[in-house]
């Protein structure tokens, strides 16, 4: 790194680290996200926990105190659900308990229940949690416990089936490669999903700063003073490296926050909401590829955003031009379900090879299938070549177009820009 490039790098680093928008996006967003998740967990509260066996198919969250009136005379004991259900002799008693807020809801098991299955629910005001039939159905099942001789059979009624998903893929033996022992494919997928979100945000946010920085220097005409002091390439490279580092820092903070913040704040329970993510072991081969794709994707978009910055004459124009490549970049997100379902079909393969969509497309495929090595090599190779081409073009456009401040870019000028 030349001295001038280093100075630009250090300056851009300092300047952007003090930017309120950057600080908020990097540190504020994870905190807000955490608070949001924590709030959701809190609102779910203790009621969120299922008082019964975790293998029970009935989700009993939402209602903690309920009453029932049994007009059949068959369900006098709520059994294991005694901590939730209270039996009332008649509806007047249940209604009085409801008005006294001793219970949240009560159910009336009609006299012809055994023939018709009719149960009436009474609640003080509409509440979607109370509409769930899980509680009463589970309680009614409890009433049948005595009738069922076998405890195993009763367990099966509570939880009729446990099942494993097995993906059937073309090619012998590939199915086992999909989900290596000890790894949860859902967890892998969630990790990749989070990676994709963070990658896209990081690419768009930090390269957005890069574009702003280029436009600002062009808009204020400072650019001419700068490039009389150093080569345009040094200026551009210094900026790209500084903002790349800031992007990496942002990504690290976000990922770190997801994993560390709940533990550090004593809200480890929040982690459980992230499901299998935190317990997973990310496939060892995927991490280096993620790093490679992140770096190449960053450089590709840094080059593209620099070109847009050099072509734009105002902060308003930039994002409009940038949409030309930001929209294609998120296409693998739109097709995520398709990629998961049929990762080796032509469209997912194309998306994992085409440079702009490759970073997300390939990582998504890698999460759910074994991608042939030649496809990975081709994808990385094409992406790397595109990065070189875009960087070269960015240097040219940057040098020429920045001097033409105030002049609108026209497509017919493109050959001139390419020639430099």
């Amino acid at each position: 790194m030349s001295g001038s490039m280093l100075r630009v790098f250090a300056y851009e680093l300092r300047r952007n680290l003090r930017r309120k928008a950057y600080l908020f996006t990097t540190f504020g967003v994870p905190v807000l996200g955490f608070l949001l998740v924590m709030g959701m967990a809190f609102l779910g509260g203790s009621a969120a926990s299922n008082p019964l066996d975790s293998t029970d198919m009935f989700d009993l969250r939402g209602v903690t105190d309920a009453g029932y009136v049994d007009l059949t005379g068959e369900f006098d004991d709520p059994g294991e659900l005694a901590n939730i259900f209270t039996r009332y002799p008649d509806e007047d008693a249940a209604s009085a308990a409801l008005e006294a807020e001793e219970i949240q809801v009560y159910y009336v098991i009609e006299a012809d229940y055994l023939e018709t299955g009719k149960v009436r629910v009474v609640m003080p005001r509409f509440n979607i949690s109370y509409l769930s039939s899980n509680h009463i159905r589970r309680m009614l099942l409890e009433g049948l416990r005595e009738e069922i001789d076998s405890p195993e059979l009763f367990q099966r009624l509570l939880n009729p089936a446990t099942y494993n998903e097995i993906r059937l893929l073309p090619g012998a033996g590939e199915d086992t490669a999909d989900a290596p022992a000890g790894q949860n494919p859902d967890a892998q997928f969630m990790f990749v999903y989070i990676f994709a979100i963070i990658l896209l945000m990081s690419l768009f946010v930090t390269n957005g700063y890069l574009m702003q920085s280029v436009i600002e220097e062009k808009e204020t005409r400072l650019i001419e003073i700068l490039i009389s002091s150093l080569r345009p390439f040094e200026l551009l490279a210094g900026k790209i490296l500084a903002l790349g580092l800031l992007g990496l820092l942002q990504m690290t903070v976000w990922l770190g926050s997801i994993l560390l913040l709940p533990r550090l704040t004593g809200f480890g329970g929040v982690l459980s909401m992230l499901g299998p993510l935190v317990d997973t072991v990310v496939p060892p081969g995927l991490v280096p590829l993620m790093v490679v794709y992140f770096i190449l994707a960053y450089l590709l978009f840094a080059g593209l955003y620099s070109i847009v910055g050099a072509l734009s004459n105002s902060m308003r124009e930039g994002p409009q031009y940038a949409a030309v490549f930001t929209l294609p970049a998120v296409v693998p997100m739109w097709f995520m379900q398709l990629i998961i379902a049929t990762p080796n079909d032509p469209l997912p393969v194309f998306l994992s090879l085409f440079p702009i969509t490759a970073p997300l497309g390939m990582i998504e495929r890698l999460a759910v299938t074994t991608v042939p090595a030649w496809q990975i090599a081709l994808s990385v190779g094409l992406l790397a070549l595109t990065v070189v081409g875009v960087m070269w073009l960015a240097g040219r456009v940057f040098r020429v177009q920045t001097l033409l401040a105030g002049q609108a870019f026209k497509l017919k000028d493109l050959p001139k820009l390419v020639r430099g």
Partner: protein
Amino acid sequence: MQHNVAVSVDRISKSYGSFRAVDNLSFEIYKGEIFAMLGPNGSGKTTTIRMILDILRPDTGRIDVLGGPINEEKKNRIGYLPEERGMYRNVQVIEMMVYLGQLKGMSTHDARQRSLELLKRLELDDAAHKKVSELSKGMQQKVQFAITVLHRPELIIVDEPFSGLDPVNTLVIKELLLDFRRNGGAIVMSTHQMQQVEELADRLLMISRGQQKLYGPVDQIRREFAQHAIIVEGEGRWDTLPGVAQVDMHENGKKEAVLYLSPDATPDSVLAAIATTKGMSIQRFELAVPSLNDIFIQVVEGHDHA
């Protein structure tokens, strides 16, 4: 006379597509002089300046700066104030000056010290820790000039250095330019303010459509454009003087007249005739030298002198 050359431009040309912006231009800029670069808009001045600064490369020809082809080290010995100039708006003045000084190879400490020193001289001490956006246009102009000379360059190129400045600040910048020249620096000044050129510049280059139209010392060029006439102010019948072919009285209430001389007469012979003619007195007698403004218009309109 042997001059110490700061910039040597030898037959450079530059085209943008089919448009020839600079056409076979040659000139030299000496150390310790103010060199004015004049020309109408679009004449090729900015392109020439950008080629000197290595922002653009000439298609043909050669440019030597400070003793040879320009390189990165030499860029640190040049200061540039472009016409379209700007600064980071939401950054403190001192921070921006230090950064731009660093880009010119200064240490952080030196850049800071020198920035504060220049700001003090420009009576902008209080502005050091203000954001650029908080400064008036005139203050911003002065800061921009300070940035141009911040790294103690040997050559500065200033494009319209006085635009947007009030008379007081114009004087401050003029003094800085003259100081710079006294210390042996070379100054290239591109401007449309002909009065400033007459007052400050030692030599000039006038370009039109990328080609050299005039080049040389300012006084010499003005003399070359002088008509065969004298300006007098005083009493007398000027048309009776021998050697005077025509008289134009100026309507400015100063009894001022332009005397156009016959081909065989000289200013000296007319002065002698005035001195020996009874009833004539003069308070002013000078050659009728045109202003640079007149010369500029004359050249640009294509009426080149013979």
